[in-house]
């Protein structure tokens, strides 16, 4: 199981689609930086293919005023949780 780290928004970039196409059936996806926009209910459909494997970084949601606006299916983790996700995965890939 690999952890994919994504910092681009599906509203303006094809990079999220690249990340999804490279993901295996157990892989997880963590949204960071501008990527956390993807946690908005209006954009969450881009991640319909990976139920239960989508995470978003709390600190980046908070800074952007998006922490209270996330879709309920997104698992919000802080930077310690980010480290934990990297521990649990056998390796990480970044999409930017």
């Amino acid at each position, binding site marked *: 199981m690999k952890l994919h780290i994504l910092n681009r928004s599906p509203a303006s970039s094809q990079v999220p689609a690249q990340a999804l196409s490279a993901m295996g059936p157990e892989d997880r996806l963590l949204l960071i*930086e501008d990527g956390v926009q993807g946690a908005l209910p209006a954009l969450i459909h881009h991640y319909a293919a990976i139920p239960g494997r989508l995470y978003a970084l709390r600190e980046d949601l908070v800074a952007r005023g998006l922490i209270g606006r996330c879709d309920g299916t997104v698992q919000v983790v802080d930077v310690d949780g980010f480290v934990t996700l990297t521990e649990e995965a056998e390796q990480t890939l970044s999409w930017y």
Partner: protein
Amino acid sequence: MRYGILLLGAPYSDQASHSALRFARALLARGHRLEAVFFYHDGVYNAARLAAPPQDEPHLVDGWATLHAEHGVALQVCIAAALRRGLLDEREAARHGKAGHSVEAPFELTGVGQLIDLGQRCDRLVTFGP
């Protein structure tokens, strides 16, 4: 676990450097070891010794130096990416006949081989891109 970080974004231009520094501190706080940060592409600009950010913004160059001082994290800067971007230590400046230098310890200019080595020797290599 042993971690490495690959940083590809310029400081202040995008969030990559801030994200990498935040992640580095968090993994160290959890008891992991951070072997090295490898600066590549525009990430090499993090080594600019003359950086003078406004006082109400984080000083990233100092932030990296502190990681080195307190946790022995190697700060490895890709030499090929650095030279064309104007980042030279004293030795490279002399070799290129330039007066002055823009990179100094604890940052070290090194080859891409160090990145490959880092990938082999660490349990996790985490990339932060622009």
